[in-house]
């Protein structure tokens, strides 16, 4: 009896963590299981196992066009925000200049502002200047809220870089651009990749800001939200599950690659 209570107190935190993970994964498991449901219009009650929805993920009306729009917005916004954010992070990490603290404040504020305020203010501005909301305005908005997250992620990587490597390149007569291109950028690559992945997942999953800035353009979260009223087709579960496994594969393979790299060095 005593040994049981001792084991419990030793492992209490592990047991707690196990329950926390269970809690985290219940909705994921539910979404995955119901992607195999032989559902009709709604996907509320289990009607039997089928692979039909996985074979035909575009079977429900509009679901794939919405997904396509999400990819266009997400990839464009990721590309632009990763470039702009990396430049800022490099300047903040490597140069002393006037206006550093106001720059930091400008980076921090969008992250400290609720999404609904960001969306509402952008919509108000677009209305004021007579800009019709469309895919372009959605991309503009997504770049805006992704930049800060890219800066924070890449800046951490810049701070951990040994500046002696860059000084060594300079000593070997590389100019500033060559040093950046050949030494700094490759060393920053894992941080930049992590930032891009973060930016894409933020953009892909965004509903509130998109709802204010995308006009009538349908995105995947919008599709799910609108169909929630009359029942979500199982195809949405298929796409949600597929995105989950895709992201998991990307994250795990990048971890394996970086672990191998460390071994080499």
């Amino acid at each position, binding site marked *: 009896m005593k040994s049981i209570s001792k084991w419990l107190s030793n492992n209490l935190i592990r047991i707690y963590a196990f329950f926390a993970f269970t809690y985290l994964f219940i909705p994921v498991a539910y979404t995955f299981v119901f992607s195999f449901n032989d559902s009709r219009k709604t996907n509320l009650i289990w009607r039997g196992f089928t692979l039909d929805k996985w074979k035909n993920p575009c079977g429900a009306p509009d679901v794939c066009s919405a997904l396509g729009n999400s990819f266009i917005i997400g990839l464009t916004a990721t590309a632009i925000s990763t470039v702009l954010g990396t430049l800022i992070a490099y*300047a903040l990490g490597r140069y002393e200049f006037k206006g550093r603290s106001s720059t930091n404040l400008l980076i921090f504020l969008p992250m400290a502002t609720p999404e609904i*305020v960001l969306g509402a203010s952008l919509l108000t501005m677009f209305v004021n200047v007579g800009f019709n909301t469309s895919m372009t305005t959605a991309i503009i908005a997504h770049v805006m809220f992704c930049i800060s997250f890219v800066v924070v992620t890449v800046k951490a990587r810049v701070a951990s870089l040994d500046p002696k490597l860059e000084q060594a390149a300079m000593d070997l007569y590389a100019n500033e651009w060559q040093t950046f291109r050949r030494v700094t950028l490759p060393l920053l690559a894992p941080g930049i990749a992590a930032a891009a992945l973060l930016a894409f997942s933020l953009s892909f999953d965004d509903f509130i800001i998109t709802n*204010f800035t995308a006009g009538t353009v349908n995105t995947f979260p919008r599709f799910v939200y609108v169909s929630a009223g009359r029942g979500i087709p199982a195809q949405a579960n298929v796409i949600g599950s597929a995105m989950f496994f895709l992201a998991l594969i990307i994250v795990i393979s990048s971890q394996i690659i970086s672990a191998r790299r460390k071994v080499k060095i």
Partner: protein
Amino acid sequence: MVAFKTTSAKVFKLKDNKSTLPYLLLLPGLLWLVLFFIVPIFSLGQMSTKVAGADTGEFVQGYRFANYIDAFSASKEQFFRSFLYGILATLIALAIAYPLAYAIAFKSGKWKNVLLVLVVAPFFVSFLLRTIAWKQILGEEGPVVGVLRGLHLISPQTSITSSAFAVVTGLAYNFLPFMTLPLYASLERIDPRTLEAAGDLYANGITTFRKITLPLSMPGVVAGTLLTFIPAAGDYINATILGSPTSKMLGNVIEARFFKIVDYPTAAALSFTLMAAILILVTFYIRRAGTEELV
């Protein structure tokens, strides 16, 4: 509030470049933020004092600051609810995430990276799908209500969804990684030898936690609570999907004013009030918690 402490400056001297290069690097990104964050906030401020014009959807500047009083008194219930739900959800997330982050940082051994991926993994499934999954799991046709009713733990009339409880737990669930990751980052930085030293000096587990671990993890607690509270207080998706008409939050009101009623000035005034209230609360909180390293 966001004073930048260059810890790196102690290790090496930053390039003290008088050239324009750093400004050129900053220019495109900061220009984007000024044009599409700062300018829109000013538009929002301008809109908040406008009055309705001749046509619907047309508004003219009247510098009517009473808009704020009208907007606030019409929806102060939802306003306070947003803050209450936000704070409750943050506390629940902290209670779940702190032991979880602690277990990953100190008890996971070689599984550390795998567990970290597992913390983030659920959030690769669209958050709307997960929120709707909760609605169905806890809903009338779902398994939970049936079991609880069968055990007579809840009465046949009671349901779990469409309640304040569902909204708050939904918020806590949705922003959990924003709490877990900063907590993990600050716990992981603690040198295990400091904990051993405390043990050597006859501190028991609880004392070690209270005097060493908790104070050293405070930056993570502050960052995590802020990253959870801010989006939770501004959210309206959880209230829409999991709530009832009596658990509507300020976000619901703003959204309805924009899209259903087309009353932009009131919506703008409410958004502005929400942002100001959050900024004041956050500044006060950071001062009290005594950490300035946020960005």
